[in-house]
């Protein structure tokens, strides 16, 4: 197996965080997950500001973004990532409850790499998270500058 890329999970719901981390852990993909509790924190992490000031310069191999979050929502985070020359290459995946067409359309319009609706059924949810973690964290070759650690 390849090295595991760092995953930034932007998710405001603690239950979802727990379930996602559990799903990743069950597939041994959780050793390098950073959790941001809203969009603003996700941006702070990516830009090395706020409580992430002075963190190591490497970027995550993928950002998993919830859409509906306090302060800065997922679509806005995506927009700012794509507008920032230093961040624009980072793969971003929407991981959301919303099936709304306008969310899907806008996400792709803003340049999202994938859009995944969280399945209600937990087994399906675990499968989805596992697939995402494996693909983006392991299989996909991220842009230079992102972190890879042995799992």
């Amino acid at each position, binding site marked *: 197996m390849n090295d595991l890329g760092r995953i930034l999970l932007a998710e405001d719901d603690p*239950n*979802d965080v727990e379930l996602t981390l559990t799903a990743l852990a069950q597939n041994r993909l959780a050793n390098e997950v950073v959790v941001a509790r809203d969009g603003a924190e996700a941006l702070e992490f990516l830009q090395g500001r706020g409580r992430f000031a002075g963190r190591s310069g490497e970027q995550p191999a993928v950002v998993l973004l919830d859409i509906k979050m306090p302060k800065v929502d997922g679509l806005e985070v995506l927009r700012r990532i794509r507008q920032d020359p230093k961040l624009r290459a980072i793969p971003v995946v929407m991981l959301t*409850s*919303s*099936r709304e067409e306008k969310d899907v359309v806008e996400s792709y319009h803003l340049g999202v790499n994938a859009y995944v609706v969280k399945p*209600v059924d937990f087994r399906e949810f675990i499968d989805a998270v596992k697939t995402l973690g494996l693909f983006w964290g392991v299989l996909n070759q991220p842009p230079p500058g992102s972190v890879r650690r042995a799992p």
Partner: protein
Amino acid sequence: MTEARPCRPRGTVLDLTTPRAIFLNGPCGACSFRGEGLNIATPSPSVRSPAWRKGSTRRLGVAAAIAGGLFCAVGLVVQARWHTRDISTSLARPALAAGAGRSAAGWILAGGVLLALAAGRASRTGRTIETSKRQAERPARSEGALKEEKQLLQSILDSMSDGVVAANLQGEFILFNPAAEAIVGLGPGGKGPQEWTERYGVYLPDATTPYPPERLPLARAIRGESVDGDIQFLRHAGAPDGVWLRVSARPIRDEDGALRGGVVVFSDMSERRRAEQRINDLNQALRHRGEELEATNKELETFSYSVSHDLRAPLRHISGFVDLLRQRSGEAVDDTSRHYLHTLAESARRMGALIDDLLVFSRMGRSAMRIVRVDLGALVEDVRRELQHDSRGRTIEWRIAPLPPVEGDPAMLRLVLANLLSNAVKYTRPRDPARIEIGAETRNGDTVVCVRDNGVGFDMEYKDKLFGVFQRLHSTEQFEGTGIGLANVRRIVRRHGGRTWAEGEVDRGAAFYFSLPRCKEDPT
């Protein structure tokens, strides 16, 4: 109309008793109008009317002649009898409104009728009298023609629905036709323009500001101005509800161009105005409704968004943690606990399905439709192939008749067929063989599609419930489902302008129909 030559006004018509009307005359005739007492006319030499001489006619009527594209005309009423002597005396009276000019003519185009009014006066009173006398004494040359012309003009003035009012330079009314009186609700009166606004209750279009007397169309016409399409509002004791008028005015000039007076023509716009008001009100209401609808739609969108996002999340959590609990407790859990956990997970899953269905249903109602020609036969084939998975191991006889092309949204129509066909497959489960027929026919120009099966059917007593949201006639144990399918069918078909209905009998199968409006063009 025996005289076809162009003519100019020559005579004078004066109402000597009341300043009601003065009239004109041309070579064809002349008369005054509606005086209470003596009305006098001094016809030109070409005018002859025995009535004038005899003084026995109550009304001479209106005479008009239009010849070679020119007009000369005049209308009048001569009331009561009169004698030559009376004429003289009367004429002698007020140097009459007459002035120095010789004649004036005005015309009005109203209601599609060219009404020519000519007012003329002798330049000297004396001469007028003389002329009048002489002329009055002279036998008429063409009495019949003149009479006819007068009657014509009079009929026009009397019968036209537009009001016609003329005044001389002093602001004395010289013409006030019946329509004018009927519309205004008051006859002639008032001493000149300064009193008109008050007497007739004239207001600006705001219906509250009194009309400035000097700006009244007739007053302006008397000053030589023309006015077109002025809107004014009249309200007085005789017309308490008010009258809306559309007014045009022209100055009256004599043949030398000297100002003689003015004439206004007006129509009653009240009905139109009220109709416009009604339309405005309706438009306003419609706009309001539109805004409300838009707001409601927005709300609905927000609502479905929050349903989509916020309601689903806790369900996912329930299902997730139940699953984790199951994994964690493993074999240590007894059967009852396992049953509880299973029920929890199953309920969460079912609620998830309900939410999804509700969202689809909501989307079907508001998403934009893409109307194209749709091959129903191909859609049916497509859907049937998809259903094969659900019907594996069963014997189903499909009888699919040729289906006509229709116009509609392909994705939505596909959902209609998917619902009807999957229902047919589902509710024929106890049958072996199951039989599902799909056919179409044209009724009153609409395409009616029927999906019939030999399944468990339904009680017609509940047919109204079939197409309701989350309405079911079977328990989930008997036949799975959320009860949204037929509600979607109905909503989609309705959005296409069609109808849905069903026939059935318990244990003897069911038939579901939907109609779609006819295709606009034939396939080529």
